[in-house]
C-alpha cells in the first residue's frame, strides 16, 4: 500500500482519518497477538479491495481516492471473525464501498456507516461464517505471534463468542466461589451444559481480550487506548461517545435491577462484544452521524436502546451493528427536527422582541 499512497493524485490525505488509523493500531496488534497473522492479512486484503473499488468510481469522477476508504476497510476487517472466508470478506467490503458510499457520490455523502453496512450485508448473507465460526484465542504468553492462525483443526472453529453464550443462558457470571465456578472463559460449551464463571475473572478476560470473538475487538483495554486518543484529540464526537456508553449502561442497570433474566450488571455488556469499539469508532463517524449536538444525544439514546433490545431479545447477536445503522437511518430526520425546532424558537424570540 505504501507505494500507492506515495503517488500523487491518487490518494487524498485527511488529517482526522490519519488519527483514526493511528487509534486503530492497538486493536490491530491485539488481533495479531490473539488470533495470528491471518488477521493482518485480512486487514490488508480489505484495504486493497476497498481501495480498488473506490478507485474505479473515483477515476470516473476524476477525483483522488480519499483516505477514509482505509479507515472503512480497517474497521470492517477488525469486526470480522478471525476465521472469515476470503470471499465473504471481499464481498462485504465491495458492497460497503459501492452501495453505501459510491452510489451517494463518494466521501462525505454517505448516509450509512459503510463498514457496518458491509458487515451487516455479509452477516445476513453468510450467517454461519459470521456467527458460528470462531477461533480460540492463543493461550501462550507469546500469543499467536508465531502462528498464521489459531485454528488447528476444522472442528476447533465451531465455538460461540462469550456474549452469544451468555445470551443463550449457557455462561453465567456469578460472584460466589464454589467448586463448579470456573476462572477462565471456556471456548466451547456442550449442548445442554451451563458453565458458571467468576464474575471478576469474566470481566478481566473481557478487558484483556483473551477470548473468542471478532478479530480486533476482543480486548476492551486496547479499544480504550485508541478510543481515549480519539476522545482526547476531539477526532470523534465526545457527545456521541458519552451518550451511547452512558445510555447503554443505564438501560442495562435498570433491566438488571428489574430482575430480567440474563442481565448481570452493567460492566459485562459494556466491556464485551465490541461495544466500546462501536461506541468509539463506529457511532462517531462524522459523516453518517447527526450534525447537531442535541441530535447526537437522541442518536446515542436510539443506539443504546436498539442495542439492548437486539442484543438480548432478538435472534441476532450483532446488536450494536444493527442499532448504529438504525441510528444512521434516523439521523437526518433528527437533525431536521432539531433545526426546525431551533428556527421556530428563534422566530418566536424575534416576535417577542418586536
Amino acid at each position, binding site marked *: 500500500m505504501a507505494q500507492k499512497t506515495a503517488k500523487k493524485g491518487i490518494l487524498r490525505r485527511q488529517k482526522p482519518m490519519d488519527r483514526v488509523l493511528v487509534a486503530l493500531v492497538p486493536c490491530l496488534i491485539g488481533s495479531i497477538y490473539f488470533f495470528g497473522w491471518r488477521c493482518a492479512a485480512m486487514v490488508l486484503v480489505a484495504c486493497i479491495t476497498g481501495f480498488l473499488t473506490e478507485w474505479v468510481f473515483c477515476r470516473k469522477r476524476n477525483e483522488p481516492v480519499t483516505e477514509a476508504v482505509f479507515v472503512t476497510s480497517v474497521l470492517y476487517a477488525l469486526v470480522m471473525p478471525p476465521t472469515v472466508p476470503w470471499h465473504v470478506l471481499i464481498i462485504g467490503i465491495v458492497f460497503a464501498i459501492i452501495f453505501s458510499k459510491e*452510489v451517494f457520490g463518494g466521501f462525505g*455523502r454517505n*448516509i450509512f456507516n459503510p463498514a457496518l453496512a458491509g458487515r451487516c*450485508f455479509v452477516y*445476513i448473507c453468510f450467517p454461519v461464517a459470521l456467527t458460528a465460526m470462531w477461533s480460540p484465542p492463543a493461550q501462550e504468553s507469546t500469543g499467536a505471534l508465531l502462528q498464521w492462525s489459531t485454528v488447528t483443526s476444522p472442528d476447533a472453529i465451531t465455538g460461540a463468542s462469550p456474549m452469544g453464550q451468555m445470551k443463550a443462558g449457557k455462561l453465567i457470571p456469578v460472584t460466589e466461589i464454589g467448586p463448579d465456578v470456573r476462572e477462565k472463559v471456556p471456548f466451547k460449551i456442550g449442548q445442554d451444559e451451563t458453565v458458571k464463571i467468576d464474575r471478576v475473572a469474566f470481566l478481566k478476560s473481557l478487558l484483556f481480550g483473551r477470548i473468542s470473538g471478532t478479530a480486533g475487538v476482543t480486548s476492551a483495554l486496547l479499544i480504550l487506548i485508541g478510543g481515549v486518543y480519539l476522545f482526547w484529540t476531539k477526532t470523534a464526537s465526545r457527545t456521541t461517545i458519552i451518550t451511547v456508553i452512558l445510555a447503554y449502561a443505564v438501560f442495562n442497570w435498570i433491566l438488571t435491577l428489574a430482575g430480567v433474566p440474563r442481565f448481570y450488571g452493567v460492566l459485562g455488556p459494556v466491556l464485551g462484544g465490541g461495544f466500546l469499539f462501536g461506541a468509539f469508532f463506529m457511532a462517531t463517524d462524522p459523516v453518517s452521524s447527526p450534525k447537531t449536538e442535541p441530535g447526537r444525544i437522541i442518536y446515542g439514546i436510539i443506539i443504546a436502546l*436498539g442495542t439492548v433490545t437486539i442484543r438480548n431479545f432478538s435472534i441476532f447477536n450483532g*446488536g450494536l451493528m444493527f442499532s448504529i445503522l*438504525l441510528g444512521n*437511518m434516523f439521523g437526518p430526520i433528527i437533525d*431536521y427536527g432539531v433545526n426546525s425546532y431551533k428556527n421556530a424558537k428563534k422566530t418566536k424570540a424575534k416576535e417577542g422582541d418586536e
Partner: protein
Amino acid sequence: MSLNQEMWAALVVCFSAVFTQNILLTTFLGMCPFTSVSREVKTSMGLGAAVVFVMTCTTILNWMAYHWILVPLGLEFYRFILFIIIIAAFVQFVEMLIDRYSPKLYQNLGIFLPLITVNCAILGASLFMVIRDYTLIVTVGWGFGAGLGWFLAILAMAGIRQKLNAARIPAGLQGPGITLIIAGLMALAFIGFTGVLG
C-alpha cells in the same frame, strides 16, 4: 383470553408491527407512495399521519365486516373485494368529513387521502389481520402499529432524501433508484429486530 390479556397482546402486536414486522421494511408493502411522496419532510409527515389514521380505522371496520358478515354467510373468499370497497368508501367518507369540519387539515391532507385508497399497505394490513387470526382488540393494536411503522419509515426516508440534496448521485440512479437502494439498506438494519417479541 381475558380482556386484560388481550390488551397486553394488542400492545405486543403493536410494538412488533412497528419494529419486527414493519410493514414497509420487512414486507415491502406501500412502496409506491414511499418512493414518490418522500421528497419533502412536511408532505411525508402528512401522508404518514393519514396512513396511521386510515389503517387503524379500516382494519377495525374490515375485521367487523369479515367476522360479522362474511364468516356467518360463508363468503370468506369475497374478502378482497369487500375490503377494497370498505377502504375506498371510508377514505371518501373521511375526506368529506374533514372537508366539512376542518378545511385547514383538509388542505394539508387532502391530496393524500385519495392516494391512500390505492396504498397496498392498507389492504395488506387487513389481509394480514385475517391470516393471523387477530381478535378485535388485537386488531386495533395491529392497525395502529402497522401505520406507525409505515409513518416512521417514510419519515426517516424523507429526512435522508433531504440530506441527499447535497449528494452527487449518479445520473442513472436519481429518484426512485437511489430511494430503493436506501430502502434496502434501511431494511437491512431492520432485520436486526427479527425474533424480538416472538
